[in-house]
Every structure is written in structure tokens, then in C-alpha cells.
């Protein structure tokens, strides 16, 4: 067992983990944070997207044992912070979550677009989300929700400048 101390959603956590434990199982099984999902568990679907040290990663391709000193943010932390409240409202309004399995990963990745690419075009939104699979929605509603959030935030920035 490997001892680790890290920050998860702002709280300090110390645990002993087996090397074979990936970050998603650590969050779900050891910490009870079930918002992050495990889908394929080999890097292709994006259901496991979380932030490590401020940047999105595939949680299924990160050993928990490697995260001593790291700062992890999950969908629970992101939701509670209010950072994506508007994005979540647009997801609900457009039915961009159906079964919801992909949704936490989608929101984490979409939040990355909001943060790093505030002027993203529709094509750039699709490109950025291309590593996140959704088997229900056909993606249009998701892309619409991200686009609407970006537009709304841009309008608000304009407003503030005036």
C-alpha cells in the first residue's frame, strides 16, 4: 500500500492505496464521491474526466498512488463552486443529459472550454469534446448548451465593459 496525501475538492485527504487503484475507483470507492464515472477504463470514452492540478485528465489512466500532493477537483467540487451553474442550467434546458452517464465528464470538459477558449466556435467546441462519448443525445444538444453558455458569458462581459 502506498501512502498519499492530497486535496480533493478543497479538503485534505490522507489514505493508503493499492498501486492498481486508479483515480476514479479511489474517488468512488474510497471517498464515496460517485459523480465521476468509470466507462471503458482504458482512455477512450471520457466518462472519467476530472481535474488534477487544475487541468482535465482521464481519471481511469491516473494511478491514485501517483497523486501525493496533488489537487483534485471532481464534478461534485465543480458544481458546489458554482463555476458552471449556467452551463448546467443550459444542459437541463436542452435535455443535453439523457441517461446522464457521460454528463459529469462532459461538464468537466465543457468547463475546460469555458475557461481556456471563451471564444470557441461550434467546430472548436466539437473538437474539444471529441474525446467524450455520449451514447444518448447525438451530441447536438450538448454542443448547443456549451455554445449558449459561451454566448451568454460573452454578452455579460460586453455588458460589464460598458
Amino acid at each position, binding site marked *: 500500500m*502506498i501512502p498519499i496525501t492530497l486535496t480533493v475538492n478543497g479538503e485534505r485527504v490522507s489514505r493508503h492505496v*493499492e*498501486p*492498481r487503484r*486508479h483515480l476514479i*475507483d479511489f474517488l468512488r470507492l474510497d471517498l464515496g464521491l460517485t459523480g465521476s464515472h468509470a466507462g471503458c*477504463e*482504458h*482512455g477512450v470514452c*471520457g466518462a472519467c*474526466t476530472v481535474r*488534477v492540478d487544475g*487541468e*482535465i*485528465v*482521464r481519471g*481511469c*489512466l*491516473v*494511478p491514485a*498512488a*501517483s497523486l*501525493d500532493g496533488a489537487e483534485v477537483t471532481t464534478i461534485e467540487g465543480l458544481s458546489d463552486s458554482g463555476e458552471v451553474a449556467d452551463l448546467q442550467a443550459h444542459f437541463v434546458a436542452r435535455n443535453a443529459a439523457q441517461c446522464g452517464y457521460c454528463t459529469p465528464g462532459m461538464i468537466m*470538459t465543457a468547463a*475546460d472550454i469555458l475557461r481556456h477558449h471563451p471564444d470557441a466556435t461550434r467546430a472548436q467546441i*466539437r*473538437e*474539444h469534446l*471529441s*474525446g*467524450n462519448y455520449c451514447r444518448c443525445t447525438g451530441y447536438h444538444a450538448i454542443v448547443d448548451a456549451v455554445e449558449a453558455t459561451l454566448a451568454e458569458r460573452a454578452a455579460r462581459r460586453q455588458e460589464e465593459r460598458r
Partner: protein
Amino acid sequence: MKWPAIGYVRARSLDDLWEAQRTHGAAAQVLAGGQTLLATLAFRLSEPGVLVDITRIPELRGVALRDGVLRIGALTRHAELGRDPLIARHAPLIAAAVPYIAHPAIRNRGTIGGSLAYADPAAELPACAVALDATLHLLSARGERRVKAEGFFTGLLSTLLEPGEIIAAVELPPASPAQRSAILEVSRRSGDYAMAGIAAVLELDAAGQVASPRLTFFGVGDRPVLATRANAALAGRVLDAAAIAAAAEALEGDLDPPADLHGPPEMKRHLARVLLRRALAQFLPAREKAA
């Protein structure tokens, strides 16, 4: 599938790494970004005994320009390659390759050292390293050596790396003002490995004459393929439509693509020719492009 039972050692220095190798012998396997290794664990395609995490070894980090050499530490992540100002200026081909590699979340973890060591024939960075005539700085408990990227890839997922040896850095000659470079690929979905791709590097003088062409293809062989005949067809010629046609024709003799999931060899040859024409057309002076 869940990963098998494995060991894990966190190396904080090169000495930690050599020590872990002494203790665990052949069971020790280096873990960098984990974006390939951990996926192969899930598939049971690899079963190392002990993962030795090298991501905290300071000597393997950082990008620097020193004594006329651009040195990219093996641990430099794909996303970092894409936003580093030194790379943008002195190795723009590498920055241009980044958007083709996987997806944002994977680019935040995967490293250039891991990509070169894994040597996937359809990967972008090995082809860029060959096209840019990079030198790889290798380290082991026994010492160090430098090898050219061109000879480093020895076959499918195979390299010159000896057991226990690691890539410490990629060293590149900084791009000259005359350098032109481009990377293009064909894949079915964004982020997939290429069905065929080209990393094209050459120099163009004021008269439009080509020097030092290094067109390199990926996804069309068991390793990156430096297109020797196509390059010979271009060298010393003024880049124009006729020169491009001559290079496309000469390319036939450079490629011997295997059939794979995507299709037969003839399809790959076709894609490679199309990519060669598109890449070289980008280097034509504006008036000829319009023509």
C-alpha cells in the same frame, strides 16, 4: 478491465530510478504519462511487476535553448509542447502536431518521451523527431549516449532502447528562417491515430529552391518512414507544380505499407501521395497557389 496487481515506486531522482531497477530487475517498468502504458495494463497487453514513476525526476523536465540546441525534456507533456514559446519559435512543427494527438485530457498527461519510447508507427511525434533530424539523449545506470531519431525506431513498437535505458530529452537544431514545416494526417475521427500522415520539413531559399528536404510519413509502415527518394527528387529544385509531381511519383519507391484495419496498401499509398501534395502546396509562393 481493472489493472492487475502491480507494484509502484515513486522515483524522485535519477538515483532513485537506478536503485529501483537494481532492486526489481526486469520487472521494473518506467511510468511517464501513463496514457499508453496504463491502457495496455487494462488490456493485459503488458504486465510489468513494478511501475517506476519517473514524473518527479527534475532532470527529465523543461524546455531550454542552449548552445544552439533546443532541448525538450522527456517529461514535457503534449499540452505543454503546444503552448511553449520556445517550441513555437524554434520547432513549430512540434507545436503544430499537438492538436492531432488524442484529446485534451490525454494531452495533459502524455509525454514526448513516452510517445517516442512506445514508437507507435502511426504516432505523430516520432515522425516529427525524424523529420526534424532530432537527437535523442539516452540515460541508464551505465551512462549516457546520443542517437539520431532516424535510426532509433527499429520496427513495430521497437527502438534502440536497451533494458533499463530511458529517454532523457529530445535535442533539435532550432528552425532556420528558411525552414518550412507542416504536419497533415487522415484519420476517421478527430483524435484517432492516423491512417496516414506526413511531417514535412525543408528549407526554401529566396529563389524558391529546396534544400535539406525531410518528408517523413507515419501510419504507412512499421515505423516513421523518411521518404528518401521523394526527398532526393525535391533537393535542389525550385518548388513548383512539376517538382511536387516528381516527388509524388518518387514516393512510390519509398513506401511499402502493410494492410491494416483501415484498408489495403494501395489505399495508404494513395493517401500518402495526396498528403505529400497538400503539404508541399502549402510551401508554394502565394501567386502559384492562386494559379
